């Protein structure tokens, strides 16, 4: 550690160097890095499963993995990616690092709870590793009953426990953010001066807090049913499998917004900074974020259109799904219009952000197609749906996560990375992603169901294209590991504000000192006070940058 920080100023990284000082830290910035380590590990575990799945599907007969093994692979891919990568990705790393910095606080409201949440997260992770090495789970990440409770032969209870415990870490993080954003803002940081990233984290935290407990109870009931053999959701004993689906999707649809809202926040920061222009329609953007968070709770039934819910509620759920798309459309429009009359540079974070807007748009419009009840009858549970949600979650969230990581990397580490390699990785992500998932739209309309380990030979060409894209995508995701890692040792020293951005996080040294600011900041300016005419900007504390 000492060698890495040799030429850097005194900072949160240099304060103490013992292992214990990291494992017992209550500094939000160190906890962010702890989370970063954990979720990176899970990203590659989930990615490994995805790699095996794509390799397996090159051959229509599906001979690489045994059927049972294939089922365990996609289940693990789903569970790990959803709960152990996507949901904590932006909030727990970038969010943890940036929320206090951006609002001008010394730390989160409950630093010890923050640390505890990391331990709880890893405890849940241990359960994942346990069921992984014991042989896996074969229910799909959705745990549908009665398959999960009475028929599956994997370690369902261990998986449910893992997700249950993981929920506590979500709740602890959400609770911390909500209270912090409400009560710990620097003087002058009124709500309508908050950076959009903070608004997004706030909306995300609210969704986490309001949805996660219901999932916890649902999985608890599944665990009880499976261990005790009683029939809570078992139709043979009077239970209703659709009740499980209602409760599961009451959480799991809003969970999609837990994944995408922070990404929208990151992208807003990036586009404003690299277009050197205030974000178009700031107030509208905040309303849109909150609208998505709230309306997102009324649409869960679109996962159940073919499951046997009443046709009346299916129609209402369809309508609400169209309604929730409106604020997303507004955001896309505002991002693109922000570029108008900007002074745009195409640094790596900006490439990721623009890639996000493109992929999110494709994911969004295909979302309209599956929200249309009549079409969803054909498309439900096919690769069309798979492609659609990967466009949102991988094309959207993961692109934004990488963009944010590059953007704030100099702040987090005090180092600059190789811009050329980073741009190359960003372009590669976009290309590889489209090649992987676009063919899946076609497969879906042709009628290829999800979770099939074998398929008719005439569809092979689309699967081969998809797998080829996946290998490009894999390179694009591994590449940053090398050049970002390299930058830690050999990277040029970054100044306090390498992008000349306006947020308070750039008004302290890189990396920031232990308690964030040498002097408590006073906020006098709206966010994103960029001037495209000469590329100058006024930071939120009034300084010209």
């Amino acid at each position, binding site marked *: 550690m000492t060698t890495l920080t040799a030429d850097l100023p005194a900072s949160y990284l240099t304060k103490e160097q013992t292992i214990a000082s990291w494992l017992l830290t209550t500094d939000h910035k160190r906890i962010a890095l702890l989370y970063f380590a954990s979720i990176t590990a899970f990203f590659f575990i989930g990615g490994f499963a995805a790699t095996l799945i794509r390799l397996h599907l090159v051959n229509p007969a599906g001979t690489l993995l045994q059927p049972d093994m294939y089922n365990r692979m996609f289940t693990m891919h789903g569970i790990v990616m959803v709960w152990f990568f996507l949901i904590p990705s932006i909030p727990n790393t970038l969010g943890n690092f940036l929320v206090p910095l951006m609002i001008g606080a010394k730390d989160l409201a409950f630093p010890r709870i923050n640390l505890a949440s990391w331990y709880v997260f890893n405890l849940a992770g241990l359960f994942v590793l346990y069921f992984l090495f014991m042989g896996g789970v074969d229910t799909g990440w959705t745990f549908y009953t009665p398959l999960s409770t009475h028929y599956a032969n994997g370690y369902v209870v261990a998986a449910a426990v893992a997700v249950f415990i993981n929920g506590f870490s979500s709740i602890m993080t959400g609770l911390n953010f909500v209270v912090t954003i*409400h*009560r710990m803002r620097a003087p002058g940081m009124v709500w309508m001066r908050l950076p959009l990233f903070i608004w997004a984290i706030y909306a995300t935290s609210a969704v986490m*807090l*309001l949805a996660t407990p*219901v999932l916890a109870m649902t999985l608890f009931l599944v665990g009880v049913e499976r261990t005790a053999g009683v029939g809570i959701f078992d139709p043979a004993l009077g239970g209703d499998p*659709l*009740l499980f689906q*209602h*409760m599961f999707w*009451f959480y799991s649809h809003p969970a999609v917004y837990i994944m995408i809202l922070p990404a929208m926040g990151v992208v807003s920061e990036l586009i404003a900074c690299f277009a050197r222009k205030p974000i178009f329609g700031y107030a509208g953007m905040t309303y849109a974020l909150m609208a998505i968070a709230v309306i997102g*709770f*009324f649409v*869960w*039934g679109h996962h159940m259109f073919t499951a*046997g*819910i*009443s*046709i*009346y*509620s299916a129609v*209402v759920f369809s309508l609400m799904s169209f309604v929730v798309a409106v604020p997303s459309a507004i955001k896309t429009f505002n991002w693109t219009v922000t570029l108008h009359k900007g002074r745009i540079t195409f640094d790596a974070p900006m490439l990721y952000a623009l890639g996000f807007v493109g992929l999110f748009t494709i994911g969004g419009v295909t979302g309209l197609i599956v929200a249309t009840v009549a079409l969803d009858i054909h498309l439900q549970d096919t690769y069309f749906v798979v492609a659609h949600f990967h466009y949102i979650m991988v094309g959207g969230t993961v692109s934004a996560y990488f963009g944010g990581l590059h953007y704030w990397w100099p702040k987090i580490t005090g180092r600059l990375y190789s811009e050329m390699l980073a741009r190359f990785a960003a372009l590669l992500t976009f290309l590889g992603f489209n090649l992987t998932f676009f063919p899946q739209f076609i497969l879906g309309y042709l009628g290829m169901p999800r979770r099939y380990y074998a398929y008719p030979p005439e569809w092979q060409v689309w699967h081969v294209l998809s797998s080829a894209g996946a290998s490009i995508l894999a390179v694009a995701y591994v590449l940053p590991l090398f050049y970002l890692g390299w930058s830690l040792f050999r990277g040029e020293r970054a100044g306090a504000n390498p992008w000349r951005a306006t947020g308070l996080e750039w008004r302290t040294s890189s990396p920031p000192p232990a308690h964030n600011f040498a002097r408590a900041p006073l906020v006098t300016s709206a966010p994103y006070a960029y001037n495209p005419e000469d590329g100058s900007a006024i930071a939120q504390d009034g300084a010209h940058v």
Partner: protein
Amino acid sequence: MSAARYLVAWAVMLLLLGLSIWSAFLRIGPWQPVAQFGIAVTQAAIVFIVFMRLPGRPSLKWVFAGAGFFWLIFLYGISMADYLTRSGLPKG
């Protein structure tokens, strides 16, 4: 002074408890769960307002305390709408 207020609240709560039990033996059919649930909501309101001292700073407490209950309305309401309009599923 405030101790007296707590004592009164406590006595009212016990009274409501008795009322709830008494209502269980009345032959009022479908109104029974309504009555009992109504009493429970009243009791919960007393607990939140008196014992958990919701009035007072910070007033944001009201929002957070209410959010959970408010959000349950969506879970109950929207799912119930499905159950009540599902064809072929007779009511008990």
